[in-house]
């Protein structure tokens, strides 16, 4: 069974999704290809939002900052959507050196559920399109677990 992902808030620098899971272990995937909602590109365009998040979602077709267009890797997807600029990503945010290109952050806030561990990661699909992967792990099938997923770009007004 998959995590249900529903858009509840959209601005050019901030998306919020409501996550719901009824099983002891669930996974969910949020795409960036323009597919049916929940999809970051689709949800931004449908709500009339242009801005940094949409630019990030278009990386495969037009590039973004130091990230060239074309198929991305998991490391690059983590850099773009989790602001994880580890050395391979490219151009690391090394000790004492600021990371100049604004990237996104994903954060989960649990709302309901018992002893639930929500995990968020970034990866790519078979075509190299970045995706955000969600996992809900509970110690037992204890009923619906609910949470909010926030995706926002740091260092921007409104982000």
């Amino acid at each position, binding site marked *: 069974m998959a995590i249900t992902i529903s858009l509840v808030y959209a601005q050019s620098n901030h998306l919020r999704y409501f996550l719901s899971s009824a099983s002891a*272990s669930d996974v969910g995937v949020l795409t960036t290809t323009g597919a049916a909602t929940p999809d970051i590109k689709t949800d931004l365009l449908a709500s009339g939002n242009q801005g940094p998040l949409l630019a990030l979602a278009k990386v495969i077709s037009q590039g973004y900052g130091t990230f060239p267009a074309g198929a991305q890797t998991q490391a690059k997807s983590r850099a773009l959507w989790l*602001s*994880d600029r*580890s050395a391979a990503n490219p151009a690391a945010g*090394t000790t004492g050196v*600021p990371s100049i290109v604004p990237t996104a952050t994903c954060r*989960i806030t649990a709302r309901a559920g018992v002893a639930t561990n929500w*995990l968020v990661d970034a990866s790519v699909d078979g075509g190299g399109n970045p995706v955000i992967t969600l996992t809900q792990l*509970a*110690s037992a099938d204890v009923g619906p677990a609910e949470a909010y997923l926030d995706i926002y770009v740091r260092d921007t007004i409104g982000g």
Partner: protein
Amino acid sequence: MAVTATLVNARAKGLRYLLTQDGAAGTTLTITTTGATTPDVLTDAPAGPIRQIAKCFTQGYGSFPAGAKTGSQSRALWLARPLGTAEFPFPLARCVVTPRTGGTAPGWRVDASVDGGGHPTIIIAAQAGAGNAYLDIELEAGAIGA
């Protein structure tokens, strides 16, 4: 060591570390603010508000004078927990942990304290079992760009 922190993003208004718990016994990590080897906020932060907070011991910050700090003052500075209204007008930092991989037991926790010399420290208590999480040390909401 059971828990490690690796700097993965450094901005003037925030640092992001990748926390790794390898599952071995001993599940705490202390991040310092003295200019020691990374992970150390003073070492890792570029010029900006986070670095200013990390320099509180040597030059003070807002209503906090220079010198040794208490545990409560460290929590005020790094967990955005003001001691009173005197701290409201200036930005404080906050620490947020976002799990990336792990098992069924949640349990990443973050606190702030001081070392024997009164230097603020950030204490990470890891979940039981192997896993990763991101630690954000960032300005609290309210500052433009935070």
